[in-house]
């Protein structure tokens, strides 16, 4: 098989190199955004998914941890724990605030105050330190700690109350804010309103029927809403997807368009420059399908080279980017890479459309021009 497409593609190496670097940079941007999105999504729902909580009890109409406003009486926890099938119930208080390190205010923290006796609501993954909190101890998200140079034993102040970092948690970064965990009594002190929590967290006993427990909680107070863990995870995920995904999606679509335009421009200028060769092929009897394939193969090969370049650029630049933005958590996944790979092929095919239009306007009789 005569490798005409490859030879045509590699004829102008400078142009190909610029194209591949352009595509690679855009592919790298898309891969990075997908990884950030996955990181945000996982960071946001990871706590809800991994904390050993079977039911989330909220104020009516509240349905997620991130944006819902929910107030419930902490005394409900004791009542719920007496329901048959419930192994334990405890309040969880959410406070959105900033910390102060020396004279500097930090970015926003999601402080979750849990009951240290039951430990229902503590983060599932502790990277270092102890989850057994004394008064004014704190478990702090790793990204937040890295961003502000904090470690186990470091001190910070919340509303003028000093807290010591007792442990560092993982999987607790929601990008726009990171989680910190304190004791419920410290939470009440910060909030200044005793007897009020945001949620009641429930653990079920072995063999308990969740629906019966949910019904029993609703009978206790019809102003409460109860979600299973899976439902609450889905609610939080939906919140992220409606809030962040459209922005990321728009950037990714824009990036894909840039990729398509880069490859189209490269091939368009190539066809324009090689007009006589294409006229010759037409004159000799190359079918439209043959010429179409010639362009599409070049386009896909160029796009895939850009994809490969993008992988290299991503691997090389991610550690540098994360140094500048330590609060960003990125999760590179094979599925995201495969989606971008498939997208690259589609873009390669679409990018061929413009030069194919030009090809149609090349007449075989042009071959007689001296």
């Amino acid at each position: 098989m005569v490798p005409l497409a490859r030879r045509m593609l590699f004829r102008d190496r400078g142009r190909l190199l610029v194209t591949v670097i352009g595509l690679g940079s855009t592919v790298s941007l898309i891969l990075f955004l997908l990884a950030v999105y996955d990181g945000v999504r996982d960071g946001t729902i990871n706590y809800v998914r991994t904390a050993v909580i079977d039911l989330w009890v909220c104020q009516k109409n509240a349905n997620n941890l991130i944006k819902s406003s929910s107030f419930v009486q902490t005394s409900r926890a004791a009542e719920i724990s007496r329901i048959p099938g419930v192994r334990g119930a405890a309040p969880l208080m959410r406070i959105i605030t900033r910390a102060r390190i020396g004279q500097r205010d930090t970015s926003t923290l999601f402080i979750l105050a849990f009951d240290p006796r039951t430990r229902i609501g503590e983060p599932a993954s502790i990277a270092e330190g102890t989850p057994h909190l004394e008064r004014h101890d704190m478990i702090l998200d790793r990204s937040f700690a890295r961003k502000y140079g904090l470690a186990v034993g470091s001190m910070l102040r919340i509303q003028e109350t000093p807290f010591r970092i007792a442990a560092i948690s993982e999987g607790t970064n929601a990008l726009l804010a990171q989680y910190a965990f304190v004791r419920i009594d410290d939470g009440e002190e910060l909030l200044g309103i005793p007897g009020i929590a945001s949620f009641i967290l429930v653990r079920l006993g072995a063999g308990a029927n969740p629906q019966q427990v949910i019904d029993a909680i609703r009978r206790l107070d019809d102003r409460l809403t109860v979600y299973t863990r899976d439902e609450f995870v889905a609610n939080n995920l939906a919140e992220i997807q409606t809030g962040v995904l459209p922005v990321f999606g728009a950037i990714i679509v824009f990036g894909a368009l840039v990729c398509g335009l880069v490859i189209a421009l490269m091939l368009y200028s190539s066809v324009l420059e090689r007009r006589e060769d294409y006229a010759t092929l037409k004159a000799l009897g190359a079918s439209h399908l043959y010429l179409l394939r010639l362009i599409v193969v070049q386009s896909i090969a160029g796009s895939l080279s850009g994809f490969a370049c993008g992988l290299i650029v991503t691997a090389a630049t991610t550690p540098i980017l994360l140094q500048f933005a330590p609060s960003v958590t990125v999760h590179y996944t094979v599925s995201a890479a495969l989606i971008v790979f498939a997208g690259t092929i589609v873009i390669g095919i679409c990018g061929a459309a413009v030069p194919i239009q030009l090809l149609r306007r090349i007449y075989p009789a042009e071959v007689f021009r001296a």
Partner: protein
Amino acid sequence: MSDVTIAATGLSKSYEGASTVTAVDDVSFDVHAGEVVLISGPNGSGKTTLLAMLGGLLLPSSGTVTLNGRNINSLPPGCLPAFRLRSIGFVFQAFRLLDELTARENVELVLEMAGARDAAIRAAALLEDAGMTDRADRLARNLSSGEKQCVAIARALANDPAVILADEPTGSLDSRAGEVAMRLLGGAARSRGKAVVIVSHDTRIEKHVNRVLRMADGRLGDR
């Protein structure tokens, strides 16, 4: 001479514009298998337009071109490329080889386009006949003008077409290379039975052809 291979009947080509320009005016002639015909005339006489119409690259304003009895102007546009590929071989003044392919690949390419399975073997044989075996693996851009035209003639013969159409085949060659090119085209007619139509204003090649047709102002006269 055998049956008529290619025939032009009342062939005309006009271009409409502010004023109508007639490039080819009511031209009729035929060429037999094994015959080499030279269409000679000055620049602008309509030779190349005539050749383009004979090759199905340009639609005539009126008249017909028949190749082995088949009116090529009546072929659906989608079928013309395949018809050209198998029935007509082209040789151009500027050679029109693909520079990034080797001599062998240039010949193989048209064989592959026609679906030949033994493209490599046939390309090697054609290049051998053209005396290009030792240049077969050189990139076309690294060949001399004479070598390029030899490869172009081998490419024109690749799919065993009935007709070879050559536009100024010696126009870019020195005398010696021109002689070689003409010997190859003459050989294609004599030993392979091709009908060869050459358009040129190079009078040196008249000794290689069977018939010369003089063209002036788009009209043809026998000589």
